[in-house]
């Protein structure tokens, strides 16, 4: 359960960073997540808080050192999954 919470927090934090990233900002403004683009600073801060909370959850399970290492290790497949989801990976028929 704690694992799941940590994973969701990492995903949420990464999604927030994606929403206010330089390349995607304009799209976010026009989407239903436009509220995130109103203050990129606050969105980034919330993302950072999510990461800290995820790291806290993992350190609760594994202890301090393994918790921090596991944050990076778990983030890799999760962010990869996010990148595959938010980008259009299908071949475009010409």
């Amino acid at each position, binding site marked *: 359960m704690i*694992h799941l919470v940590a994973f969701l927090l990492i995903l949420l934090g990464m999604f927030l*960073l*994606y929403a206010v*990233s*330089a*390349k*995607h900002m304009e799209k976010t403004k026009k989407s239903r997540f436009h509220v995130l683009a109103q203050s990129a600073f606050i969105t980034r801060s919330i993302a950072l808080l999510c990461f800290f909370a995820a790291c806290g959850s993992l350190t609760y399970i*594994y*202890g301090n*050192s*393994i918790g921090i*290492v*596991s944050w*990076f*290790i*778990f*983030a*890799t*497949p999760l*962010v*990869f999954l*996010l*990148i*595959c989801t*938010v*980008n*259009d*990976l*299908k*071949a*475009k028929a010409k």
Partner: protein
Amino acid sequence: MQKNIRQSMAWLHSWTGLLLGWLLFAIFLMGSMSYYRHEITMWMQPELAQYDVAQETALKTAYQYLDVHAYDAKSWYIGVASEKSPVNNVYWQKADGGFERKTLNPVTGQELQLSATKGGDFFYEFHFQLFGVPYLVGRIIVCIAAFIMLIALVSGIITHKKIFTDFFTLRTFKSQRSWLDFHNVSSVLALPFFLTITFTGLAIFFYIYLPWGMQKLYPDDPFQYFKEIRAKATEQTVVPSTRQDLPINTLLATVHKAWGDTIFDSVSAQNPNTTHSQITFTQSKDETITQNRPTLTLNAQTGEVIANTRNDSAIATLSFGVYGLHMATFAQPLLRLAFFFSGIMGCFMIASGLLLWSLKRQLQNKQQRFHFGHYLVDRLNVASFVGLPIAMLSYLFANRLTDVQASTANYEIISFFTVWLSSFLLALVTPRQLLWKSQLSVFIFCSISLAFFNLMYLVQHGYIHNASSYWIFLRIDLMLMVFAGLALFILKNIHPIQMHAHNKLSKKIHSAKNTKNTEVNAS
């Protein structure tokens, strides 16, 4: 023209990556497999799965065996039977200094004559010392590769102009741009893992390329360093005399009093059956990066608890930390899977980098003239990225088809290298458009057929009694299926990717010809 720092780093990144990229791919793939080496060994030795592990019995029978067969040994080591390895592995250093090793039945304590397969240890040993060369030479080559990897990582970071801007960018079916995006994504996402694993890998083998400190401090035996780093040095002025140790039941009672019910990893004894006899029990539970498993050392003559003998100095802790971070012994199943994923990402990073190198040169080559270098790189790419996994499958297939004994040749390893070499030779004569398709098809076929063949083999030999006894084998088969699915995805998409690159190349060549014709007409 003078290059700026980024251009210089890009040059360094490209050529260092190309120089040892294929070897690094093999090292990364074998390293990733090593996270599951015990599971692979279990898969390859199905006879092990029949033992039910009762650690108390296993420990007592192993102790009794050593008491009879190695009474006057200098030291004992018992790898206590566990779920990972359900047999007792015992080692001892004989009175003359030589070593002996046996595998024991955990119930009866009798010696077992198991198949001489190297199992998952083949991948593990290949990962850090290769195969077929003296181990020191292999380790030096791996160290050089790791050093190159570190250079490639640092130069890659400097070269990458937009790490944060392009962090989430992955454009597909755009030829060179797609490969670059994928290379960047796979590199940046697991960058902390790559830096850690490369640096710790280099640090573990420091004694190979920086031996002078050890030689200066321990001129007679430089490897004394490793003994001292593991345990506090104790001065022994009196020569120990022979005296029977306490029975294992008495010692175990003290251990249970201190720990309660626990799972053991190992038990080791120093100077057994002497007046200086010490016995150390180590728990299986490892919850630290520094491999600081709970241990309990007893005086085997009196049963008294001796103060912790582990070396707790800063340098020893650092050394344990380096090993722990690299081998991830602390990683629980889910975390281990994530480590494995990061390792596979490393393989993708190297593969996409080398494919990008090849594609970039093709696009730059405006004449359709044969270029041996590009031809060779293409073939080596396929032989490494697809040929090596096929060779690994053949290693597993050979395990099911042959019975490897200590007295016979190891057909598993022979088939591994034969298939790998065949893959390269086949790649040399295969036309470019069929290069990936042919070998990927072989990989998919072998992966799927191995899972079914394995099921038939297990049923035929009566190794499956219930769902849990099949799970030991099924987990590896499922992983093979996942990789077969991934290969199928690549196979399905390789054609449109190749077509796009081919069209782009044709357009470029066509426009170059047109420009040339216009210039000739104008003059």
